């Protein structure tokens, strides 16, 4: 019986998956063929966009522009995660300290990050450093505030168990508080990753000497339209890749959490 049911179910799932592909495939084909003979200066053919994509990014400008963009973003982001989690644990354990700085933290989180781009240029110029520092500064708050929430919500019974077995403060942070707060921390990290990516694009569109955003804006200003499209395409793909990678890591790390919830 079961051996009969299983292939049928698999076949069904495959059919459903095929249905999901209809629209994207149709859209890409339409784009390709409809734009093939395009003479519009704004809407070049998909073919020429892909050619520009290959010429630009694979790999002539990969080391000179793609790596710096991604490197700056990831460096700032990682600094923010480390700092945000560390401070978050501290604030989460010391409610008075958290209370004291809550208005300042809330203001910093609510401040639209992009407004600080000119400030970072004024203070630090247009090199790598201001971009890294700014990314770190604006992404630290979602991580920090989510970590605080997570650490404060650790179950008392679990804390009691850890304390009654005389785990040291450091052991309790490592084995109890951080894992228990992981769902919140990762939610904050995900928001922060999106913000970091936006900051990567915006800082390079405002002022830069290299980077994907810089190349894309240059292309637009010199009417290299298919190169501009290629730049936008790469940015789009990178945005999806970063999020996709994060979701995979998150799912792996929080497997216990979803399963625990289900049972």
């Amino acid at each position, binding site marked *: 019986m079961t051996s009969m049911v299983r292939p049928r179910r698999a076949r069904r799932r495959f059919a459903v998956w095929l249905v*999901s592909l209809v629209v994207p495939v149709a859209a890409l084909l339409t784009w390709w063929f409809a734009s093939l003979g395009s003479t519009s200066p704004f809407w070049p053919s998909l073919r020429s966009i892909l050619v520009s994509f290959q010429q630009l990014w694979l790999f002539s400008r990969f080391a000179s522009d793609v790596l710096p963009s991604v490197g700056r973003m990831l460096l700032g982001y990682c600094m923010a995660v480390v700092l945000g989690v560390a401070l978050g644990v501290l604030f989460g354990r010391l409610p008075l300290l958290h209370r004291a700085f809550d208005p*300042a933290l809330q203001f910093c989180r609510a401040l639209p990050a992009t*407004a600080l781009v000119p400030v970072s240029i004024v203070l630090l110029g247009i090199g790598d450093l201001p971009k890294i520092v700014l990314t770190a500064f604006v992404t630290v708050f979602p991580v920090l*505030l*989510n970590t605080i929430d997570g650490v404060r919500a650790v179950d008392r019974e679990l804390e009691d168990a850890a304390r009654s077995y005389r785990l040291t403060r450091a052991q309790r942070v490592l084995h109890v508080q951080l894992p228990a707060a992981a769902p919140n921390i990762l939610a904050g990290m995900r928001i922060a990753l999106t913000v970091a990516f936006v900051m990567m694009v915006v800082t390079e569109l405002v002022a830069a000497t290299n980077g994907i955003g810089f190349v894309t804006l240059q292309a*637009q200003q010199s009417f290299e339209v298919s190169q501009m499209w290629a730049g936008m395409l790469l940015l789009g793909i990178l945005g999806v890749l970063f999020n*996709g990678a994060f979701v995979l890591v998150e799912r792996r790390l929080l497997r216990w959490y979803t399963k625990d919830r289900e049972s």
Partner: protein
Amino acid sequence: MSTQPTPTGLAPAPAGFDAPTPAAAPARRASRPWLLRGLPWLTTLGILVLWELIARAGWLPPEVPSISAIGAALVELAPTAGFVHALMATLEQVAVGLAGGVVAGLVLGVALGAVPLLYRLVHYPLDFLRFVPAVVFLPLMLLLLGATPRVSTLLGMVGALWPMLFQTFYGVSGINDVLRDSARVFGLRAHQRLGHVVLPAVAPFVATGVRLAASHVLVVVVAVEIIASVRGIGADIAVYASNAVYPSMYALVFVVGVLGVLANVGLLAIERRVLRWHISYREEAR
């Protein structure tokens, strides 16, 4: 994406009497609630005073003015026509962008949530596009429309669309079958089901969507104003920055920050009032 920014506010009261409370001497006890309530404002004031003192002592770089200089610049700027127009321009772009994104997100979210086949058909493209930040489209928009407020409004809409669409979608597709069936058993008509079952179940998701959308729009609009010199507070920040008028630059950053706080805290307050009856808000108030 569905993560909600947590509301500001007091630490939750310890559950029941069983929670440990630190013992305190009776004399200190009387002064504590006052001190606790005032603490956040005292520290905030302390930070500002400290900033002022350090600036006065000359320990800050010339690019960082004192708080009093920033405050003076704000007071001076506030009544000028230039500031008012810039603020109005920014607010208009934000409002129109938000309204457009919210309406579009609502319609699409309801459609996708209610018609599973539709979701099946478009979820791959949607999952791709939602992770492309709105500012990525800026070069194209500048090419097509030039540096006009239409660009920031349009991109603001895109920024608002995604949180709104997905929150609405989660809300609609999450309405549980029991609820829907029981409404059918009681013989509610379609429009009654909409009013009594669908809307109440979806309302909190929509509220969260609007809140997320508002902060997204603000980020996008300010970015476009700065990058493309589209009329608004963002453009003025960039102008003051490049002309080294630092106190005014910080004053405007503060103004944008206040807008951000209003988008967050203000909308949350409205949300709590409007959705008082809802169980998750009742629990929060407990």
